[in-house]
């Protein structure tokens, strides 16, 4: 069977829903392809999520789970909530757009859904992803390792459309996202982030779908901001008000939190955490895996991501960083979404192997072997090393 007829067969097969019959129903060549895919289901007894806090929810996705597909399933997508998840009633939901605008707006979900719908796939990474790997002597915050990241197709309205309707005044410089979540104690500041109006007008989205489904409550239902290429905290969940102002928000989470602060520095004067840093992760083999020698080729694969300049190159080393070989990109691509990459290493006999992957972004910045730790433990983009065994 040639490639074209195989493809036609698979498409017919998928349309007919015969997939429910299982891999055994596939012809031998398709069984071989399917057998090479990691299973979509988690192995029995091994959850796909790591709970790093139960309330508010801080859940990390395992590398094994992330590695199964370019898009991350909604119920496997990392969760980071600063404050308890609010309960939203879609029927009574209103989005207020106000501040330095010609006319304030009050929009229902139906109003927002009546605006042109757009979908875009973007990777969201928590700014604290990798904090736990810094192993700081003094540390605050969730000790994320590598899985506070996910890639999803977000659907909703371009924020620029909404802002154009409100008509930003000449002094409008920043867009603040206020949200419905509140702490148990009233003195705790609300979680609030703002973005410069240039970013807001360029590509920020107000999303109400995630991977084609209604946005889940844990991920910001009924409406959240998606700020492509920026660390996840910028993509405020449960948004209820878009405030257009002449200055950035002075909220605690803008002025004191999410700053690259080093010992002796004032957080307010430190650089803000905004665009993601170039980074890659190895999803296969997993650390400690026992990989069959088989035909003598071991596949190394993973994802790489960066900010607006994109990922230009991924390289892999199997000799402690002395030499680096470029990996190939594969699968889908979208602006500010991670890219899958893969390479193969030929192994002559059973051995233990350590591989490293490093990515370079479109502006030529390459991941460091060890990122310089900042006090908040943000943006750890140190090179990922994985040790595994090749067995005979």
């Amino acid at each position, binding site marked *: 069977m040639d*490639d074209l007829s195989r493809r036609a067969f698979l498409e017919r097969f998928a349309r007919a829903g015969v997939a429910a019959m299982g891999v055994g129903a596939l012809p031998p060549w398709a069984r071989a392809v399917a057998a090479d*895919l990691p299973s979509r289901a988690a192995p029995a007894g091994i*959850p*796909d*999520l790591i709970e790093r806090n139960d309330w508010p929810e801080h859940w990390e996705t395992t590398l094994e789970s992330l590695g199964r597909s370019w898009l991350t399933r909604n119920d496997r997508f990392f969760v980071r909530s600063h404050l308890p998840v609010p309960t939203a009633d879609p029927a009574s939901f209103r989005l207020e757009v106000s501040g330095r605008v010609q006319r304030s707006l009050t929009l229902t979900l139906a109003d927002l859904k009546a605006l042109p719908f757009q979908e875009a796939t973007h990777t969201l990474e928590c700014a604290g992803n990798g904090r736990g790997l810094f192993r700081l002597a003094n*540390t605050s915050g969730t000790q994320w390792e590598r899985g506070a990241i996910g890639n999803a197709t977000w659907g909703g309205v371009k924020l620029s459309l909404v802002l154009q309707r409100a008509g930003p005044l000449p002094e409008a410089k920043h867009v603040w996202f206020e949200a419905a979540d509140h702490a148990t104690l009233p*003195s705790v500041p609300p979680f609030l982030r703002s973005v410069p109006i240039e970013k807001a007008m360029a590509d920020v989205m107000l999303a109400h779908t995630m991977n084609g489904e209604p946005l889940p409550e844990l991920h910001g239902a009924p409406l959240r901001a998606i700020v492509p290429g920026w660390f996840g905290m910028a993509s405020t969940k449960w948004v209820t008000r878009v405030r257009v102002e002449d200055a950035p928000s002075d909220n605690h989470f803008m002025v004191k939190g999410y700053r690259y602060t080093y010992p002796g520095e004032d957080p307010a004067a430190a650089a803000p955490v905004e665009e993601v840093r170039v980074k890659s992760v190895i999803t296969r083999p997993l650390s400690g895996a026992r990989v069959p020698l088989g035909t003598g080729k071991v596949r190394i694969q993973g994802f790489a991501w960066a900010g607006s300049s994109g990922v230009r190159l991924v390289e892999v080393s199997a000799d402690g960083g002395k030499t680096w070989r470029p990996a190939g990109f*594969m699968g889908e691509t979208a602006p500010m979404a991670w890219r899958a990459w893969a*390479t193969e290493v030929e192994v002559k006999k059973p*051995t233990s192997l350590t591989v490293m992957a490093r990515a370079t972004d479109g502006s030529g910045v390459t991941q460091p072997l060890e990122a310089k730790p900042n006090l908040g433990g943000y943006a750890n983009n140190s090179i990922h090393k994985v040790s595994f065994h090749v067995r005979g």
Partner: protein
Amino acid sequence: MCAADPVRWTAVGRGISKFVHIRRLAAMLMLAGCALATLAGAAGDKPPRRIAYAPQLPAGEGHELADRSCRTCHSAMLITQQAKDSTAWEKTIVQMEKWGVQLTPAEHDTLRGYLVSHFGRRTQK
């Protein structure tokens, strides 16, 4: 690459595009099968998770105070995963008092002592 190298590399990229396409279709099939399987499960349930840290605060002097003061706003795991010296815990407690946690000076000191003794500074990198 010198002859003594134990490994040889093969870039995998454009050359496997057809293969990737077939893999994607096969993935759709697997996904469809799994979607059917999971629909039968408990809808709305939280997915299973591996608990990373102790979900309860350890016993000891100050335990009840910590339980009462901290868990108003977050669960114990946010504490049991931390490592801080006395100065850093002091800073945290002052911040929490600013945000509404009510502590007498004696309770403040007891809480700091409890946190430092159980979740003190990491000694090894």
